[in-house]
């Protein structure tokens, strides 16, 4: 069965500092990977996705993520965090082909300190 682990429940980063949110997945085939962001009381917004090609993908709001097959990871990064980035971040995985639903991690809450 597919699974997603986000090992950090909370992370605090100073404004202007770099950010890396970890995501590890377990999947028996080539995965389709996503990162979403959720502001309080809102729905989830897609930041970026990966399904093939360059393992470093660019997303919206200055985020990027790198797919590392050998480590089963898809970590999210941003070089300089802004206070408006404070939110909860979810990693998700699904199969590249065939029918199945996405599996989401439990999320990482990002706090940004001044």
């Amino acid at each position, binding site marked *: 069965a597919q699974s997603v682990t986000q090992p950090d*429940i909370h992370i605090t980063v100073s404004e202007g500092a770099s950010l890396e949110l970890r995501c590890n997945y377990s999947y028996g085939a080539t995965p*389709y990977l*996503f990162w*979403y962001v959720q502001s309080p*009381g*809102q*729905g*989830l*917004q*897609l930041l970026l*996705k990966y399904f093939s090609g360059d393992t470093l993908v660019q997303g919206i709001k200055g985020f990027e993520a790198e797919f590392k097959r050998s480590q089963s990871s898809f970590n999210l990064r941003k070089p300089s965090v802004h206070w408006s980035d404070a939110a909860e971040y*979810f990693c998700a995985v*699904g*199969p*590249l*082909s*065939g*029918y*199945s*639903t*996405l599996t*989401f*991690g*439990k*999320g990482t809450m990002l706090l940004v300190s001044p």
Partner: protein
Amino acid sequence: SQTIHQWPATLVQPVGSPLSLECTVEGTSNPNLYWYRQAAGRGLQLLFYSVGIGQISSEVPQNLSASRPQDRQFILSSKKLLLSDSGFYLCAWSARDNQPQHFGDGTRLSIL
């Protein structure tokens, strides 16, 4: 462009009362539709998904049901709400299997 609408945004209901949450998608046809429940610290729990009118798959047996009476309409219902049904409910759509899911703004349901 495609949009997804969920309502109401917040709802307070007594235990034992019925429930109906509605979700509609505009700007696309034959979408996959999903209902999730989100509890603090527990991520997203997929409740139901649908690949077409009248086709509903349930992921978790529970007090809730879903229906898809029209191509772009997805309804979450309950005949008698329980305290444990409290939570944040999210509707989502995708163009087809394994494409990114796009979420509505959610409904905060409180059971008293």
